[in-house]
């Protein structure tokens, strides 16, 4: 890098899709991907973030698109900033939590905070007939400031356009879905849709930034300083 200073800043995000609260549904899995602006590019990508899901009943249809890791890597620029989690069942305790603890680990580089990455989540699960249907979409920005952040994302699904449609879609197990989950990270065109709230997904982010301040962006807590906290014991005082 030139001595003049950095020309990009880096944003490293790791963390996990921790758990979800979907009071009515069980056996859910989730998919995530990132949406970011034109000035952003993922740099280092986790290699094992795509876990192969066991197909089950609806394997040949529905969103069981297994990311073709090798192909993607060949194509290079697109990257692997997406993943599909395992299927989780509700916990038997009162919390009724759906825990995935599905890791997120991605690093972006960018020249411009405009188009700050958003994580887009989509949750799927089987319905009464065993069809795999979507249970929620949601998106949230990756936290701006370095540190540990917890985010609870409310989830929603698009509604059917009519009662009849609703019935048939329920019956056929083909609920309305977004053409692309990334739509939920954008504002454009949302006015034509109607959605229903579904549940919550809790995300944990650990955010590290580099050179943001050097490029003139101050995002709260100093990112140049090391982690605060007590210094490790230095041994015995004399």
């Amino acid at each position, binding site marked *: 890098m030139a001595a003049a200073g950095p020309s990009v800043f880096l944003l490293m995000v790791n963390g996990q899709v921790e758990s979800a609260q979907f009071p009515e549904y069980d056996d859910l899995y989730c998919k995530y991907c990132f949406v970011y602006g*034109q000035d952003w590019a993922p740099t280092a990508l986790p290699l094992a973030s795509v876990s192969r899901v066991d197909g089950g009943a609806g394997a040949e249809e529905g969103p069981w698109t297994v990311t073709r890791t090798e192909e993607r890597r060949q194509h290079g620029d697109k990257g692997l900033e997406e993943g599909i989690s395992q299927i989780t069942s509700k916990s038997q305790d009162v919390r009724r939590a759906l825990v995935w603890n599905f890791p997120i680990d991605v690093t972006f580089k960018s020249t411009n905070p405009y188009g700050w990455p958003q994580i887009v989540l989509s949750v799927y699960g089987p319905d009464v007939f065993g069809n795999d249907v979507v249970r929620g979409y949601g998106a949230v920005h990756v936290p701006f400031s370095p540190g540990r952040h917890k985010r609870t994302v409310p989830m929603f699904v*698009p509604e059917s356009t009519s009662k009849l449609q609703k019935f048939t879609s329920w019956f056929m197990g083909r609920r309305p879905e977004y053409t692309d989950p990334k739509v939920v990270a954008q504002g454009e065109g949302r006015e034509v849709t109607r959605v229903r709230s579904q549940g919550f997904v809790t995300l944990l982010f650990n955010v590290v930034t580099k050179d943001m301040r050097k490029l003139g962006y101050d995002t709260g807590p100093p990112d140049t300083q090391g982690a605060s906290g007590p210094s490790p014991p230095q041994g015995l005082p004399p």
Partner: protein
Amino acid sequence: MNPKEEKVKIITEEFIENDEDAGVGRQKKTPKVARQKRKKRLPTTGPEEMVSENPHFNQQEPVQEDSDTRPLSMTSRRGPRSLPPIPSASRTGFAEFSMRERMREKLQAARSKAESTLLQEIPTPRPRRLQSPSEKELETEFGTEADEEVQRTQKEDDSQSYSRVKFCDSVRKIKPKPPVPPGFPSAEEAYNFFTFNFDPEPEESEEKPKAKNRDGTNQEEEEGEEEEPPVQEHKMDEEELLSAKDDEDFLLGLDHAAEDFVVVRPADYESVHVRLQMEKELLFVPSRLTVPTYKKLPENVQPRFLEDEGLYAGARPEVPRACQNIMENRLLTQEPGRKWFGDDGKILALPNPTKGFPSRPPVLTQEQDIKAELETLYKKAVKYVHRSQHMIGSGDPSGNFQLDIDISGLIFTHHPCFSREHVLAAKLAQLYDQHLARQQRNKAKFLTDKLQALRNAVQTELNPAKPHKSLDTTQKAINEYKSEIRQTRKLRDAEQEKDRTLLKTIIKVWKEMKSLREFQRFTNTPLKLVLRKEKVDQKTDEEAYEAEIQAEISELLEELMEEYERKMEGYRAAYQQWKAWKKAQRAKKKKKKQEHPDEEMEEPYPGEEPVKPVPPEPTDRALVEQQVRERAARSRRRPGEPTLVPELSLAGSVTPNEQCPRAEVLRREDVKRRSIYLKVIFNDKEVSRTDSRPLGADFRVHFGQIFNLQIFNWPESLMLQVYETIGHSGTTLLAEVFLPIPETTIVTGRAPIEEVEFSSNQHVTLDHEGVGSGVPFSFEADGSNQLILMTSGKVSNGVAWAIGENGIPLIPPLSQQNIGFRSALKRADAISSIGTSGLTDLKKLAKWAAESKLDPNDPNNAPLMQLISVATSGESYVPDFFRLEQLQQEFNFVSDEELNRSKRFRLLCLRSQEVPEFRNYKQIPAYDREIMEKVFQDYEKRLRDRNVIETKDHIDTHRAIVAKYLQQVRESVINRFLIAKHHFLLSDLIVEEEVPNISSEGSGILGLSLFKLAEQKRPLRPRRKGRKKVTAQNLSDGDIKVLVNIIRAYDIPVRKPTASKFQQPSRSSRTFSEKRAASPTAHSPTHSADYPLGQVLVRPFVEVSFQRTICHTTTAEGPNPSWNEELELPFRAPNGDYSTTSLQSVRDDVFINIFDEVLNDVLEDDHERGRGIHTHIERHWLGSVKIPFSTIYFQAKIDGTFKIDIPPVLLGYSKERNLMIERSFDSVRSLSEGSYITLFITIEPQLVPGESVREKFDSQEDEKLLQATEKFQTECALKFPHRQCLTTVTDISGKTVFVTRYLKPLNPPRELLDACPSSPQATAELLDYFLFKQELVARYVSLIPFLPDTVSFAGICDMWSTSDQFLDLLAGDEEEHAVLLCNYFLSLGKKAWLMMGSAIPEGPTAYVLTREQSHYLIWNPCTGHFYGQFDTFCPLKSVGCLIGPDNIWFNIQRYDSPLRINFDVTKPKLWKSFFSRSLPYPGLSSVQPEELIYQRTDKAAAAELQDRIEKILKEKIMDWRPRHLTRWNRYCTSALRHFLPVLERSQGEDIEDDHRAELLKQLGDYRFSGFPLHMPYSELKPLTEAVYSTGVHNIDVPNVEFALAVYIHPYPKNVLSVWIYVASLIRNR
């Protein structure tokens, strides 16, 4: 620990130690330790303590271990005697240390023996001592013996280090202690003392030799060590004094020597107390006690209470005292604890944020039974706005408020019924009132007193009794006084004069009245004026008068003297001036006289001659006196004259009616008939009215009523309306009286009765004595001196706030007041929020704020303070302009120019605007300096060149103009629809199953779809499912692929055997009819004989190139190869933009090239043939199919058989088929010329083509016609939804035009027709002639370049240009070609129609149908080819409608394939016509021009272009062969160039053999492969692409030579036909 056990150990140790000779010092030490241990234990002989100590004792052990390297045996014995844990204990120190210990141990042993005996004697537990923490810590230092070794490993914990540190501390503390506390008179003490003294001596003796051996660095350390043990001992000794019976231990333990090795250890148990102690160390329990204030504040700071200083401090939230104390204690223990405390010594806290009262308005609970409450109540609808703005704010405590209005009475100061006397009486009363008021104020007296005081002051000042004052100040003061005196005097005089005048007037009016009474001989009013005379003492009065006058005179004189002085001064100056002037004048005159004595008279004075100043008159005292006296006489009571005091009384009697004249009686009766009442209007609503009271003869009405107004809101207005009723006739509104709304301080009982005047402007004329109102009347008999009086009067009333039961005034809250008072807008006003009203001027406000000393800390005042700070800082000026975004400037952090100069900002802006160049710019650099200037170059160039025509890219000027024009049209159209692109539909965003539609055939009704559920998952006969479509918004490079499935080909040209060099040219005589019939007889069977049987005719393979990516199939054999291979080509969108618009404008073509693979044996030597095969692969281009990407994109898939575009001359190949082989097949197949290839092309994933924007365009068509078109189209769509029906189209200006207007006979270029041979005579020949003409025309049309609308106007709409526009633009798609061709055909006298249908590969397209005598011909306008109706290879697959110049016919036949339909449009059952009997053709005028004018194309320009193209192509070929030498064979090139015009003339047909013969003649010794390419000219790029796709340049045979020739044939209107001949030559050896 069991004491017994311990003893045992000690003894054993002792025993062993005796054997050892080494350690003397050690002995010294050990006893001490043992002693310590005992000491400690003994005090806590309670069983629980003894045990619980153990774990702590052992904490030190590991440290010892670290520093200890003694043998294991020793450890086992000596370990228990734990050393004092010195962290820095070194190994060297240990030796002597242990010796000392041993010494000590010995002594200890003896002592402990004694102790233990004692202990046995006294078995009772010792009383427990209170242990100080330090003691406790010490205790832990000295481990007990038994379980140490076991526990050593177990009990290492963190507290170790802690206790160690503690230990050090305690040691330090102990150090300075005096060795022995004096005087303890026990035996033990004596013993201890003895031992103590004994200790240090051997230590010292030991140490000395040791110290010598060591290096100096260690010395200090040692000393530390040495010192410590004794010190500890002192401590212990002290303790021992309390419990000193250790001797017992020693004796008891004697028997159990062996037990030393077996560790028996009780279970660990920590007593509650110990645990508590431990917890105390770890836990912190804050005290609940109040923290003294001084702790919370920095030293020497007194607590400061803001409230006491008068500053605002909000109420603190309620926190229990105990909690506060705990928190404070907690905070104080923390390091910067004090920062949490404020100046007042309390924890910092924000004011209590909770509101004191509930936000919800309380429900007015009233004692009512439920039924009544539930009853419906009619309420008149009220205007919401009006209501709400005065509603009590929800935050205010609401309630009923009461305003008491006391209307006591009404007095008319004038009334129409007033008689003249009344008028005078009213006047008199008024004057009297005035007089009374003046009297009350008594201004004259006040001023007189003031004057007197001032005079006295002057006197005292002048008195020289005060010498200390400087003369100056005195003088100054006097002067001031004097001026004041003057002022006051003037004022007093004026006042006195007024008083006197008023008195005079009163008397005058009274006199008038008296005279009037006398005159009319009756009295109407009881008014009576009495002038009371007050006698005054004449003498004193006179004296005072005189003194006053004298004083005045003297003052005046003084004044005048001053004036005189001043004037004199001025006079003197002026006189001097004048004198000087005079002198000068005289001198001048004198001079003049001498010179021109006779001119004297003519000489005028040059300037104004200064007037000689007149000296001022000195003041005359007498004169002054006279003036003064005059004035005094005028304004003052004469001395001795009695003071007149007028008194008005109503004592007079009114003449009774019977004594009055009739007119007066009438008047009085009229008055009696009248009655008055008042209405009380509150907030413009009548709330109450008084009783109607008759008007009294004195024109007074008494009401005496009090109205209690129950109100909710602050009153906005309060008004009384005065109504007069005359008899029974009716009421008239006399006047409106506005009452002021009382101040909040005015409550009932305190309210004064006020009189509010009113007046009316009504005009009343009465026929009796009443003077009327608004009409002139006069007192004089002659009617002069007229008066006009209006009805007026006074209402005496009192308005006050009522007082509630509990004495609280029922006043609406203050905050509401202003809202009500002004308008609801003021609610947000900062000023009104604090309850100050009427301060709208900011400056006044600031002044007020400064005066009222608002507390700036009070949050209530916050908005005001801000306002004031703005106001006082002078920033609040009122601008005289209006700014829409007044804050914009605040956000401008740099100037606009600077912002625009920033490259990065510019880039961001352009990207945001979706400028094509930047739409997909990724990673805009963070700094300006990293942005290259060239980024903008293209864009700027484009902007610059918008109007400049560039000829560099376009070799031919005309094309450049056209291209520019097209570009502009395109841009404007794109801009128009850019917004529409961002318009989303539900289907764009959400994938949803379609509504099961009953009418739709495919998905069927719901029931059917339910049946689907029952279907098997894997049916035996799977049905094809539609592919999922992908909207092209989230794609990126590599996501899209073009799949090309090459199935098979027919009639590939075959190689000609090289042997048959000279073929007989046999085709020249071929007739036109033959061509049309496409007769197979043309192929003479003789050729087939040339092929030796078994030889491979051709080895074709297919190469597909798209966007410079090339894929090819395997090689098949024979002229009818079958590949059945799928090729996959990646697709890259321009600029990485995968939006629909971008994809639509992709202009790349898919080239499908067919090559022949030729294997050449390169071996020169036949001898090597057995050993290896050396062949060289050559590939020869045979032909190509070109399919634009846009077609694939819109069609989603292309499936069919296509004619291969084979060059007219393919050297070395012939299309003749081997009839022997293919005869049987031939006969079945339709007989058509050319080679064909069957393809299937699609895009994976399937993209959703952009919907064309459905937009209503303007139209100049008749509204009826438009309605008809809509009707027609819906009808057609209902019957055959998939058939294309076209009635209206959009022209290039965006207007809807009826389609038939485009069709009109238009003349083809004349020279085109001239070229054909003269019309033959015979009829058969005539037909051919016509067909030939048609072909020529079609060819001409096909030479106009093809440019799809979707490319030019991306996805927006299909635009039709008229034929002249089309020819000008020289670009258009199928419609334009078809329209032009159709028009030409019409002009040639043919019956021709535009045929809308779908074809492969184009999809929906337009063809031209012509009717020959017996059959129909289908023309493809873009290629110029024509097909018979029954030609299976006709690309047109379905026919939707036919369009003629005067009608439209929609195909309503069952089938739409041209093969199966009847083209007879006259049959209404087969063709539904638009214009029919019900709607006759209205005779629409055409949009086409009358005639097309063709310019002859400049031949020279064409020739120049030809040269340039040739040059460029040659360069390109060399570029494409970067690693090889490209040699050009000039000879061959010239031969080819010569040959191309021939090809053009013959239109590329039937000359192959001649050509080849000729070439062979010329290039006999070359192996030659090459072909001419023919295409219309639009741009250079398609030409190079075409050349590239042939792959001629790919030959890498070493000695290859190339030949390239270009020929351009110009047609009229700049239509250019380009021929490119490319060939490669290899010399035959």
